[in-house]
């Protein structure tokens, strides 16, 4: 099958990649660009392990063709940490034991990263609803929710301090 050239800006870096029209974005990210953070758990959009951020929205990269992302700005888990170190969400997931096997974690944190931009001060109920597209088999979510709420509090405090 013929390949076409598409342009993706991933974690701030521009890439031109050749992909078949049917190639799923998650495979382009994982296999062509060697970004192994997004995982494949279901291939039907249910589990969210493949979640990435595309043009400011959380997207499940296992059910999107790479060609559909032509020209897009993409952030994966690999792009969430800052030059100064881990993102506060990553810190809080560790601090509050928000992960066990780690397979859902990249998608979960990437989703939470967007959620806290959509709603910087969510209630517990809003967090639970906001991550309902991401499944975790290990944690029962309680500590994930705790970690996201703690990250929100810390980010808000940092914002206030900066103002």
């Amino acid at each position, binding site marked *: 099958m013929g390949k076409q050239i598409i342009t993706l800006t991933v974690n701030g870096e521009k890439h031109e990649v050749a992909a078949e029209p049917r190639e799923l974005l998650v495979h382009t990210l994982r296999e062509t660009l060697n970004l192994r*953070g997004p995982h494949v758990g279901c291939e039907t959009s249910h589990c969210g392990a493949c979640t990435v951020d595309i043009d400011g929205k959380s997207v499940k990269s296992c059910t999107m063709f790479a060609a559909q992302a032509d020209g897009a700005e993409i952030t994966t888990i690999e792009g969430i940490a800052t030059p100064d170190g881990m993102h506060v969400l990553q810190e809080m997931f*560790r601090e509050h034991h928000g992960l066990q096997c780690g397979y859902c974690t990249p998608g979960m944190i990437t989703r939470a990263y967007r959620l806290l931009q959509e709603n910087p001060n969510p209630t517990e109920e809003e967090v639970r609803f906001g991550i309902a597209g991401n499944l*975790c088999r290990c944690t029962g979510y309680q500590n994930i929710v705790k970690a996201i709420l703690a990250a929100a509090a810390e980010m808000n405090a940092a914002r206030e301090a900066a103002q």
Partner: protein
Amino acid sequence: MKDLEDRQERIDNLKGLGCSRKRVEDARFTQGKGNYVDDVNLPGMLHGDFVRSPYAHARVKSINIDAAMALDGVVAVLTAKDLEPLSLHWMPTLAGDKQMVLADGKVLFQGQEVAFVVAKDRYVAADAVELVEVEYEELPVLVDPFEALQSDIVLREDIKDEKEGAHGARRHHNHIFLWEEGDKDATEQVLDEAEVVAEEMVYYHRTHPCPLEPCGSVASMDKINGKLTLWGTFQAPHVVRTVASLLSGIEEHNIRVISPDIGGGFGNKVGVYPGYVCSIVASIVTGQPVKWIEDRMENLMATAFARDYWMKGKISATKDGKITGLHCHVTADHGAFDACADPTKFPAGFFHICTGSYDIPVAYVGVDGVYTNKAPGGVAYRCSFRVTEAAYFIERMIEVLAIELNMDAAELRRINFIKADQFPYQSALGWEYDSGDYHTAWDKALAAVKYDDLRAEQAQRVEDFKAGKTRKLLGIGLTHFTEIVGAGPVKNCDILGMGMFDSCEIRIHPTGSAIARLGTISQGQGHATTFAQILASEIGLSADSITIEEGDTDTAPYGLGTYGSRSTPVAGAATAMAGRKIRAKAQMIAAYLLEVHDNDLEWDVDRFVVKGAPERFKTMKDIAYAAYNQAIPGVEPGLEAVSYYDPPNMTYPFGAYICVMEIDADTGEHEIRQFYALDDCGTRINPMVIEGQVHGGLTEALAIAMGQEIAYDDMGNCKTGTLMDFFIPTAVETPHYTTDHTETPSPHHPIGAKGVGESPNVGGVPAFSNAVHDAFRAFGLRQSHMPHDHWRIWKIANDLGLHG
């Protein structure tokens, strides 16, 4: 005072037992730097994919691979005929049966592996799967195990005339075994003469562990040096190496098995699956690395289901509620091949822990294993070999008996608990419970939820419901479970002949840090964090200075792997014992350095101190350096130890769970208002990790009890092959849990620890299910089968006439 503070600081610095140490694994995982099997990418790697049967029972008339082979990028298509010369078209199962690797003349369940396509990329492989032409002749299907035992239809033609199976006599061509434990005659006599007998069929439905990462493997046969490297989702990598050697004829030293990071196991990754075998064969045939990764549908349809036990129970008691006997007969649906993951001598696992937490003087269990046209498996989904089925059975029977006696179910439990002074306790079915204090745990749990107030509220609710003031019912789900985890002992527990010990090897480095390798493999349990804590407390080096490594058979000592909550009871014990060997040698070195006799020294947190002269000491760090930098008479250089630990007994964790559930009688919807979980897992290594395990296990229990199932239609079509149909709770459906604990150490474990990861599933399922049943008890409900999804709960209400 200063000394005490100093000592406490030294203890804290170790981050040893009892410390909620943050996990060392998390820096990688939170930054997307895990290394799972699908992340393994080798030069020239090919991709394998299966042609699977659309039928549950059919003869395979022909397979035409020509069109598939003609597709650009296809390298090979393997069928049973290609595997037969290698004797790999069938493989042994863990349960003493054998299983087709690729369909040999017929298929026995929907989704069965028929042919293995190998291509240059995963897309081409998927295309080629569609081009393999298979001609089937449909055969009549058996999906009901009771019908299968009566039917003339022969499922397993390969063994139809064999009267003896791996576990004794077979009485029908679809019968696998009858396994019995206990005193049948004495139990029947007690039941015949009992004042009260409650009888019920309790079904624990078929479900699936469904870890978020599906199963997969990468095989790389290096023809030049004759070495096979196999990466895969293996909960028991060393056993996989031994099995791979026995099956392939490659000498074991030429096989290296690596379990990289594993994205959850829950029992799903214990077995050996056709995909693993085919990836190995394909790599040998093609001379290139071959990756096989199943998709979610393949995982749910074909890779190791769990449960599917029809448990017919009879429990007898005196009029005032003292239990006198228990009888249980199980019809166990094993699917097309008996591929249960149990220790060899236990075809029904440890199901005979089904007397639970109760002092029952006489009991009998009989389990009939049956073949049907369903996927093989029978793995322990977050439980220790059928313990979840056992706990569900006894906790339902207790509730049914409470109804029969018109008694409060909490009180019925209390008067029948094994008492603290009865431990070690010999159960009627042959187990020796190591330790427990059930009454203390139970009273603490009932007090925590204000049990009497809940019952009063429930009684009022029933009145209000009857008066038409509300449509919501209140259920109080009680459970007191006893687990049995930590297989060995070797004398009666093995997997394919390998005794179920486990191991730890420690090397102390000259500058006072260490690496320890174990025969287990973490799948999210956090071994790299917690095993370092065990060791820190034993050898006095900070957990932060200890690397834990597992999963590479070329470097780790042989072990039986991680499942059945055996890591802490067995490998954790090996870790402590190896640590003690280190300390014993360290004591000799310290004595030399301090110029005293060994016996003049005592261990204090992180150092050996001269008795009566606390200012004279050598820390473990000092000793480590000395072990490498000077000649000590009579002592070999270096500081290393290895321990292979054969546990003298299993450990018996227990717990008290209470679920308070609101149920809408009109819609069948439920809301979990409160869930209280008290666990006793003996000595607690890392409370944070324990709590996380409990949350996760409870959520898997919630899924199983309230909606999750592998269901088939009459044609043997699997109706639950995607996450649309197979229920996994999201954060929205999952309630908030309250965790609590008591601490009753195991008397035989070196640090008193028991397992915990599976307790919440074992205890959680009956707690959720009992809450549903309890909500309808006042209206006459005795038993209704799981999963309690909205439709089934609505149907309970409807059948009881609650819809007017």
